[in-house]
Protein backbone atom coordinates (compact mmCIF):
# COMPACT_ATOMS: atom_id res chain seq x y z
CA UNK A 1 0.00 0.00 0.00
CA UNK A 2 2.91 2.31 0.78
CA UNK A 3 6.45 1.98 -0.44
CA UNK A 4 9.02 4.66 0.20
CA UNK A 5 12.66 4.63 -0.66
CA UNK A 6 15.16 6.93 1.01
CA UNK A 7 12.55 9.65 1.40
CA UNK A 8 13.99 13.00 2.47
CA UNK A 9 12.75 16.47 3.16
CA UNK A 10 14.90 19.46 3.99
CA UNK A 11 13.50 22.83 5.00
CA UNK A 12 15.43 26.02 4.44
CA UNK A 13 14.30 29.01 6.42
CA UNK A 14 16.36 32.18 6.53
CA UNK A 15 19.66 30.41 6.13
CA UNK A 16 18.83 27.71 8.67
CA UNK A 17 18.60 24.22 7.24
CA UNK A 18 16.39 21.64 8.93
CA UNK A 19 16.62 18.06 7.77
CA UNK A 20 13.16 17.05 8.93
CA UNK A 21 13.13 13.61 7.26
CA UNK A 22 16.49 12.02 6.54
CA UNK A 23 16.08 8.96 4.39
CA UNK A 24 13.07 6.90 5.37
CA UNK A 25 12.41 3.61 3.59
CA UNK A 26 9.15 2.06 4.61
CA UNK A 27 6.80 -0.60 3.35
CA UNK A 28 3.22 -0.88 4.54
CA UNK A 29 0.95 -3.70 3.36
CA UNK A 30 -2.77 -3.45 2.72
CA UNK A 31 -4.80 -3.69 5.90
CA UNK A 32 -1.94 -2.91 8.27
CA UNK A 33 -2.24 -0.48 11.14
CA UNK A 34 1.05 1.30 11.71
CA UNK A 35 1.72 3.73 14.53
CA UNK A 36 4.51 6.24 14.00
CA UNK A 37 6.02 7.25 17.30
CA UNK A 38 8.59 9.92 18.02
CA UNK A 39 9.31 13.03 20.06
CA UNK A 40 8.26 16.55 18.99
CA UNK A 41 10.07 17.59 15.86
CA UNK A 42 11.05 14.03 14.94
CA UNK A 43 9.61 14.44 11.44
CA UNK A 44 6.37 12.49 11.78
CA UNK A 45 4.10 15.14 10.33
CA UNK A 46 6.60 15.92 7.59
CA UNK A 47 6.61 12.24 6.62
CA UNK A 48 2.82 12.12 6.54
CA UNK A 49 2.59 15.36 4.58
CA UNK A 50 4.90 13.96 1.92
CA UNK A 51 2.85 10.77 1.66
CA UNK A 52 -0.34 12.81 1.29
CA UNK A 53 1.14 15.06 -1.47
CA UNK A 54 1.05 18.17 0.73
CA UNK A 55 4.83 18.43 0.64
CA UNK A 56 7.14 17.54 -2.18
CA UNK A 57 10.01 15.27 -1.13
CA UNK A 58 13.48 16.79 -1.42
CA UNK A 59 14.79 13.38 -2.49
CA UNK A 60 13.73 9.76 -2.63
CA UNK A 61 10.52 8.18 -3.90
CA UNK A 62 7.17 7.27 -2.46
CA UNK A 63 4.41 5.11 -3.92
CA UNK A 64 1.11 5.51 -2.14
CA UNK A 65 -1.79 3.22 -3.06
CA UNK A 66 0.19 2.24 -6.16
CA UNK A 67 0.71 5.82 -7.31
CA UNK A 68 3.85 7.93 -7.23
CA UNK A 69 3.34 11.02 -5.05
CA UNK A 70 5.40 13.29 -7.30
CA UNK A 71 4.33 11.97 -10.72
CA UNK A 72 0.60 11.77 -9.99
CA UNK A 73 -0.37 13.65 -6.81
CA UNK A 74 -4.00 13.90 -7.95
CA UNK A 75 -4.16 10.12 -8.22
CA UNK A 76 -2.87 9.77 -4.68
CA UNK A 77 -5.41 12.27 -3.34
CA UNK A 78 -8.26 10.24 -4.85
CA UNK A 79 -7.24 7.18 -2.92
CA UNK A 80 -6.36 8.44 0.52
CA UNK A 81 -7.91 10.15 3.51
CA UNK A 82 -5.96 12.56 5.67
CA UNK A 83 -6.56 13.95 9.12
CA UNK A 84 -3.86 16.53 9.74
CA UNK A 85 -2.44 17.70 13.01
CA UNK A 86 -4.39 20.98 12.78
CA UNK A 87 -8.16 21.44 12.77
CA UNK A 88 -9.82 20.75 9.44
CA UNK A 89 -12.94 22.87 9.74
CA UNK A 90 -13.09 26.55 8.84
CA UNK A 91 -13.64 28.48 12.06
CA UNK A 92 -16.86 30.18 11.05
CA UNK A 93 -18.29 27.25 9.17
CA UNK A 94 -20.90 24.94 10.59
CA UNK A 95 -20.06 21.35 11.43
CA UNK A 96 -22.62 19.72 9.15
CA UNK A 97 -21.89 22.12 6.26
CA UNK A 98 -18.20 21.25 6.38
CA UNK A 99 -18.90 17.52 6.30
CA UNK A 100 -21.21 17.93 3.32
CA UNK A 101 -18.69 20.18 1.54
CA UNK A 102 -16.02 17.54 2.07
CA UNK A 103 -18.24 14.93 0.38
CA UNK A 104 -18.79 17.30 -2.54
CA UNK A 105 -15.03 17.84 -2.85
CA UNK A 106 -14.74 14.10 -3.40
CA UNK A 107 -17.42 14.20 -6.09
CA UNK A 108 -20.38 13.02 -4.07
CA UNK A 109 -23.80 14.40 -4.84
CA UNK A 110 -25.25 16.73 -2.20
CA UNK A 111 -27.78 14.07 -1.17
CA UNK A 112 -25.15 11.35 -0.81
CA UNK A 113 -22.82 13.72 1.02
CA UNK A 114 -25.59 14.70 3.42
CA UNK A 115 -26.43 11.06 4.13
CA UNK A 116 -22.80 10.22 4.80
CA UNK A 117 -22.39 13.30 6.99
CA UNK A 118 -25.33 12.14 9.10
CA UNK A 119 -23.78 8.70 9.56
CA UNK A 120 -20.49 10.17 10.66
CA UNK A 121 -22.09 12.68 13.04
CA UNK A 122 -23.70 9.66 14.67
CA UNK A 123 -20.62 7.45 14.63
CA UNK A 124 -18.30 10.06 16.12
CA UNK A 125 -20.87 11.29 18.63
CA UNK A 126 -21.24 14.71 17.14
CA UNK A 127 -25.03 14.60 17.07
CA UNK A 128 -26.64 17.85 18.16
CA UNK A 129 -23.67 19.89 16.96
CA UNK A 130 -24.80 20.06 13.31
CA UNK A 131 -25.50 23.78 13.29
CA UNK A 132 -22.70 24.86 15.63
CA UNK A 133 -19.74 26.73 14.19
CA UNK A 134 -16.38 25.04 14.40
CA UNK A 135 -15.06 27.88 16.57
CA UNK A 136 -17.66 27.11 19.23
CA UNK A 137 -16.70 23.44 19.64
CA UNK A 138 -14.55 22.14 22.47
CA UNK A 139 -11.09 20.86 21.58
CA UNK A 140 -12.15 17.22 21.73
CA UNK A 141 -15.32 17.83 19.73
CA UNK A 142 -13.27 19.61 17.09
CA UNK A 143 -10.88 16.69 16.91
CA UNK A 144 -13.73 14.26 16.42
CA UNK A 145 -15.02 16.46 13.63
CA UNK A 146 -11.57 16.41 12.00
CA UNK A 147 -11.65 12.64 12.00
CA UNK A 148 -15.18 12.62 10.58
CA UNK A 149 -14.02 14.90 7.74
CA UNK A 150 -11.18 12.52 6.96
CA UNK A 151 -13.57 9.55 6.76
CA UNK A 152 -16.24 11.12 4.56
CA UNK A 153 -15.21 9.32 1.37
CA UNK A 154 -14.41 5.96 2.99
CA UNK A 155 -10.75 5.96 1.99
CA UNK A 156 -8.96 2.64 1.64
CA UNK A 157 -5.84 4.22 3.10
CA UNK A 158 -6.10 6.59 6.01
CA UNK A 159 -3.44 8.90 7.44
CA UNK A 160 -4.07 10.29 10.91
CA UNK A 161 -1.70 12.80 12.49
CA UNK A 162 -2.24 12.64 16.26
CA UNK A 163 -5.94 11.90 15.89
CA UNK A 164 -6.68 11.43 19.57
CA UNK A 165 -4.84 14.44 20.97
CA UNK A 166 -7.25 16.42 23.12
CA UNK A 167 -9.91 13.70 23.25
CA UNK A 168 -11.20 12.36 26.54
CA UNK A 169 -10.76 8.63 27.24
CA UNK A 170 -14.28 7.82 26.13
CA UNK A 171 -13.89 9.65 22.84
CA UNK A 172 -10.57 7.93 22.26
CA UNK A 173 -12.07 4.53 22.92
CA UNK A 174 -14.95 5.37 20.61
CA UNK A 175 -12.61 6.45 17.82
CA UNK A 176 -10.62 3.26 18.17
CA UNK A 177 -13.77 1.23 17.97
CA UNK A 178 -14.65 3.03 14.76
CA UNK A 179 -11.20 2.47 13.27
CA UNK A 180 -11.27 -1.19 14.26
CA UNK A 181 -14.62 -1.56 12.52
CA UNK A 182 -13.32 0.18 9.38
CA UNK A 183 -10.42 -2.21 9.24
CA UNK A 184 -12.59 -5.25 9.77
CA UNK A 185 -15.28 -4.29 7.29
CA UNK A 186 -13.27 -2.54 4.60
CA UNK A 187 -9.72 -3.70 5.17
CA UNK A 188 -8.68 -0.07 5.55
CA UNK A 189 -4.96 0.56 5.89
CA UNK A 190 -4.17 3.03 8.68
CA UNK A 191 -1.00 5.01 9.32
CA UNK A 192 -1.16 7.22 12.38
CA UNK A 193 1.09 9.18 14.67
CA UNK A 194 0.50 9.44 18.38
CA UNK A 195 2.13 10.51 21.60
CA UNK A 196 0.01 8.12 23.64
CA UNK A 197 2.22 5.11 24.17
CA UNK A 198 -0.49 2.96 25.70
CA UNK A 199 -2.58 3.58 22.62
CA UNK A 200 0.16 2.56 20.20
CA UNK A 201 0.81 -0.44 22.39
CA UNK A 202 -2.78 -1.61 22.47
CA UNK A 203 -3.88 -0.87 18.91
CA UNK A 204 -1.00 -1.05 16.47
CA UNK A 205 0.46 -4.33 15.27
CA UNK A 206 3.42 -2.40 14.14
CA UNK A 207 5.27 0.53 15.65
CA UNK A 208 7.69 2.66 13.71
CA UNK A 209 9.87 4.78 15.97
CA UNK A 210 11.17 7.93 14.31
CA UNK A 211 13.82 10.23 15.76
CA UNK A 212 15.71 13.06 14.07
CA UNK A 213 14.06 12.20 10.77
CA UNK A 214 15.11 8.56 10.73
CA UNK A 215 13.43 5.26 11.53
CA UNK A 216 15.28 3.87 14.52
CA UNK A 217 13.04 0.88 15.18
CA UNK A 218 10.24 -0.88 13.36
CA UNK A 219 8.52 -3.88 14.91
CA UNK A 220 5.56 -5.06 16.97
CA UNK A 221 5.25 -3.70 20.47
CA UNK A 222 6.14 -6.99 22.20
CA UNK A 223 9.17 -7.47 19.98
CA UNK A 224 10.33 -3.93 20.61
CA UNK A 225 10.09 -4.37 24.33
CA UNK A 226 11.83 -7.71 24.29
CA UNK A 227 14.63 -6.32 22.17
CA UNK A 228 15.18 -2.89 23.64
CA UNK A 229 13.99 -2.85 27.23
CA UNK A 230 14.02 -4.91 30.39
CA UNK A 231 11.54 -5.56 33.17
CA UNK A 232 12.53 -4.47 36.63
CA UNK A 233 11.85 -6.25 39.92
CA UNK A 234 12.23 -4.25 43.13
CA UNK A 235 12.17 -6.02 46.49
CA UNK A 236 11.89 -4.29 49.87
CA UNK A 237 13.86 -6.29 52.44
CA UNK A 238 15.61 -5.77 55.80
CA UNK A 239 19.05 -6.93 54.71
CA UNK A 240 19.59 -6.04 51.08
CA UNK A 241 23.22 -7.14 51.13
CA UNK A 242 22.24 -10.75 51.91
CA UNK A 243 19.74 -10.79 49.08
CA UNK A 244 22.25 -9.35 46.68
CA UNK A 245 24.50 -12.33 47.30
CA UNK A 246 21.64 -14.75 46.75
CA UNK A 247 20.44 -13.34 43.44
CA UNK A 248 22.62 -12.97 40.37
CA UNK A 249 22.73 -9.50 38.87
CA UNK A 250 20.92 -7.76 41.71
CA UNK A 251 21.89 -4.26 42.80
CA UNK A 252 21.23 -2.54 46.13
CA UNK A 253 19.48 0.80 46.35
CA UNK A 254 18.92 1.78 50.01
CA UNK A 255 16.72 -0.89 51.56
CA UNK A 256 15.73 -2.15 48.17
CA UNK A 257 17.16 -4.71 45.87
CA UNK A 258 16.75 -4.16 42.16
CA UNK A 259 16.92 -6.74 39.43
CA UNK A 260 16.74 -6.09 35.67
CA UNK A 261 15.66 -8.99 33.49
CA UNK A 262 13.46 -10.18 30.68
CA UNK A 263 10.07 -11.72 31.42
CA UNK A 264 9.88 -10.50 35.03
CA UNK A 265 6.32 -11.72 35.57
CA UNK A 266 7.40 -15.34 35.12
CA UNK A 267 10.50 -15.03 37.22
CA UNK A 268 9.01 -13.24 40.20
CA UNK A 269 7.04 -16.12 41.88
CA UNK A 270 10.03 -18.48 41.77
CA UNK A 271 12.30 -15.78 43.08
CA UNK A 272 10.03 -15.07 46.03
CA UNK A 273 9.79 -18.80 46.86
CA UNK A 274 13.57 -19.12 46.74
CA UNK A 275 14.06 -16.15 49.08
CA UNK A 276 11.51 -17.56 51.52
CA UNK A 277 13.36 -20.87 51.61
CA UNK A 278 16.55 -18.93 52.36
CA UNK A 279 14.79 -17.30 55.32
CA UNK A 280 14.59 -13.79 53.85
CA UNK A 281 11.49 -11.77 54.65
CA UNK A 282 10.27 -9.80 51.64
CA UNK A 283 8.09 -6.88 52.73
CA UNK A 284 7.03 -5.88 49.27
CA UNK A 285 7.74 -6.88 45.71
CA UNK A 286 7.26 -4.49 42.76
CA UNK A 287 7.27 -5.54 39.15
CA UNK A 288 7.84 -2.81 36.56
CA UNK A 289 7.20 -4.28 33.15
CA UNK A 290 9.09 -2.77 30.26
CA UNK A 291 6.98 -0.11 28.53
CA UNK A 292 7.28 1.47 25.14
CA UNK A 293 8.64 4.47 26.96
CA UNK A 294 11.51 2.32 28.25
CA UNK A 295 12.06 1.23 24.66
CA UNK A 296 12.12 4.84 23.67
CA UNK A 297 14.51 5.74 26.44
CA UNK A 298 16.82 2.90 25.45
CA UNK A 299 16.76 3.89 21.79
CA UNK A 300 17.02 7.66 22.05
CA UNK A 301 18.24 8.38 25.57
CA UNK A 302 15.09 10.47 26.07
CA UNK A 303 11.72 9.76 27.56
CA UNK A 304 8.77 10.32 25.30
CA UNK A 305 6.56 10.78 28.32
CA UNK A 306 8.43 13.87 29.47
CA UNK A 307 8.34 15.31 25.97
CA UNK A 308 4.65 14.66 25.74
CA UNK A 309 4.06 16.37 29.07
CA UNK A 310 6.14 19.36 28.06
CA UNK A 311 4.41 19.78 24.70
Amino acid at each position, binding site marked *: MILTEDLRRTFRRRGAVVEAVRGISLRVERGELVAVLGPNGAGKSTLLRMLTTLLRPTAGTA*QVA*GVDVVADPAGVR*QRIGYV*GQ*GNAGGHHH*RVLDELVTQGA*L*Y*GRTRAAARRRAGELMEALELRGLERRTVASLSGGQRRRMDVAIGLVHRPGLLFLDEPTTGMDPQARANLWEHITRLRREMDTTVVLTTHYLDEADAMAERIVVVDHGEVIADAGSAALRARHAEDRIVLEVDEPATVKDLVDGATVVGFRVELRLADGARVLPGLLARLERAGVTVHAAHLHEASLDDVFLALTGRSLREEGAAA
Partner: protein
Amino acid sequence: MSVTVVTRVEPDTVRPGFVRDTVTIFLREFQLVLRDPFSLIFSLLQPLVFLGLFAPLLAGSLSSDALGGESPLTWFLPGVVVMIALFGTGSTGANLLYELMTGSYERVLATPVSRPAILVGRALKELAPLVVQAVIITLAALPFGVRFSPAGVVVGLAILGVFGVGLGALSYALGLASRNREWLFWGVQQTLIFPLLILSGMMLPLESGPGWMQAAATVNPLTYVVNAERAAFTGALADPAILHGAIAATLTCAVGLVVGVRAVLRSAG
Protein backbone atom coordinates in the same frame (compact mmCIF):
# COMPACT_ATOMS: atom_id res chain seq x y z
CA MET B 1 12.20 -2.27 -9.83
CA SER B 2 8.97 -2.06 -11.75
CA VAL B 3 5.85 -0.84 -10.04
CA THR B 4 2.45 -1.17 -11.63
CA VAL B 5 0.66 2.11 -11.38
CA VAL B 6 -2.97 1.50 -10.60
CA THR B 7 -5.04 4.26 -12.18
CA ARG B 8 -8.42 2.80 -11.41
CA VAL B 9 -10.57 5.13 -9.38
CA GLU B 10 -12.81 3.79 -6.62
CA PRO B 11 -16.13 2.85 -8.24
CA ASP B 12 -18.32 5.35 -6.34
CA THR B 13 -16.06 8.31 -7.08
CA VAL B 14 -16.97 10.72 -9.84
CA ARG B 15 -14.09 12.97 -10.90
CA PRO B 16 -15.69 16.32 -10.11
CA GLY B 17 -13.83 18.62 -12.51
CA PHE B 18 -13.23 22.34 -12.53
CA VAL B 19 -16.77 23.69 -12.78
CA ARG B 20 -18.23 21.48 -10.08
CA ASP B 21 -15.30 22.12 -7.78
CA THR B 22 -15.60 25.87 -8.32
CA VAL B 23 -19.26 25.70 -7.35
CA THR B 24 -18.42 23.65 -4.26
CA ILE B 25 -15.72 26.07 -3.11
CA PHE B 26 -17.93 29.06 -3.90
CA LEU B 27 -20.83 27.64 -1.93
CA ARG B 28 -18.61 26.83 1.02
CA GLU B 29 -17.54 30.47 1.26
CA PHE B 30 -20.91 31.92 0.35
CA GLN B 31 -22.60 30.04 3.18
CA LEU B 32 -20.78 32.42 5.50
CA VAL B 33 -22.12 35.48 3.70
CA LEU B 34 -25.67 34.15 3.87
CA ARG B 35 -25.35 33.32 7.53
CA ASP B 36 -23.98 36.73 8.40
CA PRO B 37 -26.35 39.07 6.55
CA PHE B 38 -25.08 42.15 8.38
CA SER B 39 -21.83 42.15 6.46
CA LEU B 40 -23.88 41.85 3.29
CA ILE B 41 -26.16 44.73 4.29
CA PHE B 42 -23.21 46.95 5.11
CA SER B 43 -21.55 46.10 1.84
CA LEU B 44 -24.77 47.11 0.09
CA LEU B 45 -24.83 50.42 1.93
CA GLN B 46 -21.30 51.19 0.85
CA PRO B 47 -22.12 52.27 -2.72
CA LEU B 48 -24.98 54.39 -1.41
CA VAL B 49 -22.63 56.20 0.95
CA PHE B 50 -20.36 57.06 -1.93
CA LEU B 51 -23.31 58.03 -4.00
CA GLY B 52 -24.63 60.37 -1.31
CA LEU B 53 -21.39 61.89 0.01
CA PHE B 54 -18.83 61.82 -2.75
CA ALA B 55 -20.79 62.51 -5.88
CA PRO B 56 -22.11 65.95 -4.76
CA LEU B 57 -18.57 67.11 -4.01
CA LEU B 58 -17.40 65.88 -7.35
CA ALA B 59 -20.26 67.71 -9.05
CA GLY B 60 -19.37 70.92 -7.24
CA SER B 61 -15.66 70.86 -7.91
CA LEU B 62 -15.53 69.69 -11.49
CA SER B 63 -17.05 71.09 -14.61
CA SER B 64 -18.80 68.59 -16.79
CA ASP B 65 -16.11 69.30 -19.40
CA ALA B 66 -13.59 67.47 -17.26
CA LEU B 67 -15.92 64.47 -17.26
CA GLY B 68 -16.22 64.29 -20.98
CA GLY B 69 -19.52 66.12 -21.01
CA GLU B 70 -21.33 63.58 -18.84
CA SER B 71 -23.28 64.24 -15.71
CA PRO B 72 -21.14 63.58 -12.60
CA LEU B 73 -23.25 60.61 -11.51
CA THR B 74 -23.11 58.89 -14.85
CA TRP B 75 -19.37 59.31 -14.77
CA PHE B 76 -18.90 58.44 -11.12
CA LEU B 77 -21.13 55.43 -10.46
CA PRO B 78 -19.44 52.88 -12.71
CA GLY B 79 -16.19 53.85 -10.96
CA VAL B 80 -17.79 53.04 -7.60
CA VAL B 81 -18.80 49.61 -8.87
CA VAL B 82 -15.22 48.93 -9.97
CA MET B 83 -13.93 50.16 -6.63
CA ILE B 84 -16.18 47.77 -4.72
CA ALA B 85 -14.97 44.92 -6.90
CA LEU B 86 -11.38 45.99 -6.34
CA PHE B 87 -11.63 45.99 -2.56
CA GLY B 88 -13.75 42.85 -2.47
CA THR B 89 -11.58 40.60 -4.61
CA GLY B 90 -8.40 42.24 -3.33
CA SER B 91 -9.19 40.81 0.09
CA THR B 92 -9.70 37.24 -1.19
CA GLY B 93 -6.35 36.26 0.28
CA ALA B 94 -7.17 37.82 3.66
CA ASN B 95 -9.80 35.20 4.41
CA LEU B 96 -7.23 32.59 3.58
CA LEU B 97 -4.73 33.79 6.18
CA TYR B 98 -6.85 32.36 8.93
CA GLU B 99 -7.34 29.00 7.24
CA LEU B 100 -3.60 28.74 6.74
CA MET B 101 -3.07 28.90 10.47
CA THR B 102 -5.53 26.11 11.23
CA GLY B 103 -5.49 22.89 9.22
CA SER B 104 -8.41 23.94 7.07
CA TYR B 105 -6.43 24.94 3.97
CA GLU B 106 -4.34 21.78 4.17
CA ARG B 107 -7.46 19.66 4.42
CA VAL B 108 -8.84 21.11 1.19
CA LEU B 109 -5.49 20.61 -0.55
CA ALA B 110 -5.43 16.96 0.48
CA THR B 111 -8.64 16.34 -1.47
CA PRO B 112 -8.63 15.83 -5.24
CA VAL B 113 -10.24 19.26 -5.76
CA SER B 114 -9.10 21.12 -8.89
CA ARG B 115 -6.46 23.69 -7.89
CA PRO B 116 -7.70 26.57 -10.08
CA ALA B 117 -11.20 25.96 -8.68
CA ILE B 118 -9.93 26.84 -5.20
CA LEU B 119 -8.91 30.28 -6.48
CA VAL B 120 -11.85 30.95 -8.75
CA GLY B 121 -14.45 29.76 -6.24
CA ARG B 122 -13.12 32.10 -3.59
CA ALA B 123 -12.82 35.08 -5.92
CA LEU B 124 -16.39 34.54 -7.12
CA LYS B 125 -17.58 34.67 -3.54
CA GLU B 126 -16.08 38.13 -3.22
CA LEU B 127 -17.74 39.15 -6.49
CA ALA B 128 -21.20 37.81 -5.72
CA PRO B 129 -22.42 40.80 -3.66
CA LEU B 130 -21.34 43.02 -6.53
CA VAL B 131 -24.28 41.93 -8.64
CA VAL B 132 -26.72 43.10 -6.00
CA GLN B 133 -24.72 46.28 -5.43
CA ALA B 134 -24.79 47.12 -9.11
CA VAL B 135 -28.54 46.66 -9.24
CA ILE B 136 -28.99 48.91 -6.21
CA ILE B 137 -26.80 51.59 -7.75
CA THR B 138 -28.66 51.44 -10.99
CA LEU B 139 -31.99 51.80 -9.22
CA ALA B 140 -30.77 54.45 -6.78
CA ALA B 141 -29.53 56.58 -9.65
CA LEU B 142 -32.95 56.70 -11.27
CA PRO B 143 -34.37 59.49 -9.06
CA PHE B 144 -31.36 61.63 -10.02
CA GLY B 145 -32.34 61.36 -13.62
CA VAL B 146 -29.51 58.99 -14.48
CA ARG B 147 -30.46 56.07 -16.70
CA PHE B 148 -28.14 53.12 -17.05
CA SER B 149 -28.66 50.53 -19.75
CA PRO B 150 -29.53 47.14 -18.17
CA ALA B 151 -27.86 45.22 -20.99
CA GLY B 152 -24.82 47.45 -20.62
CA VAL B 153 -24.70 46.84 -16.87
CA VAL B 154 -24.71 43.09 -17.52
CA VAL B 155 -21.83 43.41 -20.00
CA GLY B 156 -19.97 45.65 -17.55
CA LEU B 157 -20.39 43.16 -14.73
CA ALA B 158 -19.14 40.34 -16.94
CA ILE B 159 -15.93 42.23 -17.73
CA LEU B 160 -15.54 43.15 -14.08
CA GLY B 161 -16.11 39.54 -13.07
CA VAL B 162 -13.28 38.32 -15.27
CA PHE B 163 -11.02 41.04 -13.94
CA GLY B 164 -12.08 40.29 -10.34
CA VAL B 165 -11.25 36.59 -10.65
CA GLY B 166 -7.75 37.53 -11.78
CA LEU B 167 -7.30 40.01 -8.97
CA GLY B 168 -8.73 37.54 -6.47
CA ALA B 169 -6.24 34.91 -7.60
CA LEU B 170 -3.37 37.40 -7.18
CA SER B 171 -4.65 38.28 -3.73
CA TYR B 172 -4.79 34.58 -2.93
CA ALA B 173 -1.17 34.16 -4.01
CA LEU B 174 -0.25 37.09 -1.79
CA GLY B 175 -2.10 35.44 1.09
CA LEU B 176 -0.07 32.25 0.60
CA ALA B 177 3.17 34.23 0.46
CA SER B 178 2.21 35.99 3.69
CA ARG B 179 1.73 32.75 5.58
CA ASN B 180 2.32 33.47 9.29
CA ARG B 181 3.02 37.13 8.44
CA GLU B 182 -0.35 38.81 8.34
CA TRP B 183 1.19 42.31 8.26
CA LEU B 184 2.85 41.43 4.96
CA PHE B 185 -0.47 40.78 3.27
CA TRP B 186 -2.06 44.03 4.37
CA GLY B 187 1.09 46.02 3.79
CA VAL B 188 1.49 44.88 0.20
CA GLN B 189 -2.23 44.97 -0.52
CA GLN B 190 -2.66 48.57 0.68
CA THR B 191 0.55 49.72 -0.98
CA LEU B 192 -0.65 48.44 -4.33
CA ILE B 193 -4.37 49.00 -4.27
CA PHE B 194 -4.45 52.79 -3.75
CA PRO B 195 -2.01 53.74 -6.52
CA LEU B 196 -3.84 51.33 -8.84
CA LEU B 197 -7.12 52.92 -7.89
CA ILE B 198 -6.03 56.55 -8.24
CA LEU B 199 -4.04 55.93 -11.42
CA SER B 200 -7.06 54.43 -13.14
CA GLY B 201 -9.14 57.59 -13.04
CA MET B 202 -11.70 55.74 -10.99
CA MET B 203 -12.52 58.43 -8.44
CA LEU B 204 -11.17 61.60 -10.05
CA PRO B 205 -10.47 62.26 -13.72
CA LEU B 206 -6.80 62.15 -14.64
CA GLU B 207 -7.13 64.55 -17.54
CA SER B 208 -6.26 67.43 -15.25
CA GLY B 209 -3.34 65.56 -13.67
CA PRO B 210 0.36 65.80 -14.61
CA GLY B 211 1.68 63.96 -17.64
CA TRP B 212 3.43 61.23 -15.72
CA MET B 213 0.17 60.24 -14.08
CA GLN B 214 -1.52 59.97 -17.41
CA ALA B 215 1.38 57.90 -18.69
CA ALA B 216 1.14 55.61 -15.68
CA ALA B 217 -2.57 55.22 -16.30
CA THR B 218 -1.96 53.85 -19.79
CA VAL B 219 -0.09 50.84 -18.37
CA ASN B 220 -2.59 50.26 -15.59
CA PRO B 221 -5.01 47.51 -16.66
CA LEU B 222 -7.56 48.94 -14.28
CA THR B 223 -7.78 52.12 -16.40
CA TYR B 224 -9.14 50.12 -19.31
CA VAL B 225 -11.58 48.27 -17.10
CA VAL B 226 -12.87 51.54 -15.61
CA ASN B 227 -13.29 53.09 -19.07
CA ALA B 228 -15.07 49.99 -20.29
CA GLU B 229 -17.48 50.13 -17.33
CA ARG B 230 -18.31 53.79 -18.07
CA ALA B 231 -19.04 52.95 -21.68
CA ALA B 232 -20.97 49.80 -20.80
CA PHE B 233 -23.21 51.39 -18.15
CA THR B 234 -24.40 54.01 -20.62
CA GLY B 235 -25.14 51.29 -23.15
CA ALA B 236 -22.41 52.29 -25.60
CA LEU B 237 -21.63 48.67 -26.36
CA ALA B 238 -19.94 49.43 -29.68
CA ASP B 239 -17.40 51.72 -27.99
CA PRO B 240 -13.85 50.34 -28.46
CA ALA B 241 -13.30 51.00 -24.75
CA ILE B 242 -15.38 47.88 -24.09
CA LEU B 243 -13.09 45.72 -26.17
CA HIS B 244 -10.01 47.21 -24.53
CA GLY B 245 -11.50 46.63 -21.10
CA ALA B 246 -12.35 43.05 -21.97
CA ILE B 247 -8.78 42.44 -23.13
CA ALA B 248 -7.30 44.02 -20.01
CA ALA B 249 -9.63 41.94 -17.84
CA THR B 250 -8.80 38.72 -19.67
CA LEU B 251 -5.06 39.35 -19.39
CA THR B 252 -5.38 40.13 -15.69
CA CYS B 253 -7.40 36.96 -15.24
CA ALA B 254 -4.86 34.82 -17.10
CA VAL B 255 -1.88 36.26 -15.24
CA GLY B 256 -3.72 35.98 -11.92
CA LEU B 257 -4.62 32.32 -12.45
CA VAL B 258 -1.11 31.35 -13.55
CA VAL B 259 0.48 33.12 -10.58
CA GLY B 260 -2.21 31.85 -8.20
CA VAL B 261 -2.10 28.20 -9.26
CA ARG B 262 1.68 28.27 -9.10
CA ALA B 263 1.49 29.64 -5.59
CA VAL B 264 -0.91 26.87 -4.58
CA LEU B 265 1.31 24.19 -6.09
CA ARG B 266 4.38 25.69 -4.47
CA SER B 267 2.64 25.90 -1.10
CA ALA B 268 2.27 22.13 -1.39
CA GLY B 269 5.92 21.47 -1.81
